[in-house]
């Protein structure tokens, strides 16, 4: 009996992201302990404070005030993890979000949070009664409406990052073909020099810009869906 075990390349990328985040946490913790609160922040402490303040402002504009304190750390975690995962294509790895399992997991965590907050704030009777509104045969569209955020958020992130990575690999193979063509005139194949010139622009769009936008969309939709389920502030 043989056991076939395939370890995909994205597992290595996940390990790289996790080790990087843990190392940064230790480093920032050490800097923060040596930081005097009354002096002006500089360097890494300034970057960390700026990030926390930006995320707090973003959450405060969308979610109700009483929920900001418990939701903002989750949004901050999503923001850092998703941004680092999306731009990992820049360093030659397969980005972890290129695997549907990773994006499905993140979307599933958000989906469970949405349903749990809906039940906790409005009661389970009102939650089940909401399926049968406005008239009884609306059960099936309402069920699909509940599942739709899960599928759409996971496939949006997965599709964008996967397609960016496939287009980059097509560009690189086209550039290496061109390089072989040009260098073949001088005899012999060698270094892929066209790719070094052409590829950075595409990396800046597909990895940095699209990665940032997709992360921003994911956290915006998370906050909007959760705040729709909660009761309004008086």
């Amino acid at each position: 009996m043989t056991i076939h075990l395939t370890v995909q390349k994205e597992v290595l990328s996940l390990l790289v992201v996790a080790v990087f985040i843990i190392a940064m946490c230790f480093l920032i913790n050490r800097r923060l302990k040596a930081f005097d609160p009354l002096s002006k922040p500089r360097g890494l402490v300034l970057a960390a404070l700026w990030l926390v303040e930006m995320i707090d402002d973003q959450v405060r504009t969308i979610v109700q005030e009483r929920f900001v304190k418990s939701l903002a750390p989750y949004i901050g975690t999503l923001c850092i993890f998703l941004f680092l995962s999306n731009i990992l294509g820049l360093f030659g790895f397969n980005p972890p979000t290129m695997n549907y399992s990773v994006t499905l997991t993140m979307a599933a965590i958000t989906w469970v949070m949405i349903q749990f907050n809906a039940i906790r704030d409005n009661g389970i009777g009102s939650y089940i009664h909401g399926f049968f509104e406005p008239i009884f045969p609306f059960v099936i569209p309402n069920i699909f409406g509940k599942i739709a955020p899960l599928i759409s958020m996971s496939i949006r992130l997965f599709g964008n990052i996967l397609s960016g990575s496939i287009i980059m690999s097509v560009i690189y193979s086209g550039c290496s073909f061109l390089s072989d063509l040009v260098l073949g005139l001088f005899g012999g194949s060698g270094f892929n020099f066209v790719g070094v010139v052409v590829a950075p622009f595409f990396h800046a769009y597909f990895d940095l810009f699209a990665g940032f936008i997709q992360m921003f969309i994911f956290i915006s939709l998370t906050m909007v869906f959760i705040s729709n389920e909660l009761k309004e502030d008086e």
Partner: protein
Amino acid sequence: MDVGTGLIAIGAGLSVFTGFSTGIGQGYAAAKAVEAVGKNPEAASQIRTMLIVGCAVAETCAIYGMLIAFIIVFVLGA
């Protein structure tokens, strides 16, 4: 190249047609955003946020089409 492979290629090409409506819709949204900034310049950063979020949600049409095209090419064409 036999007829089967050619038909697979045609199928993959047809499924990218969903990007056509995405281009029109997002261009219209950008036009309305520019007009709104012209009417109310101090809400510019909020309008920018809503434009980006709205465009990315509307982009899912094109993304689904491209995903199906990739699946057709890489799974059926192998």
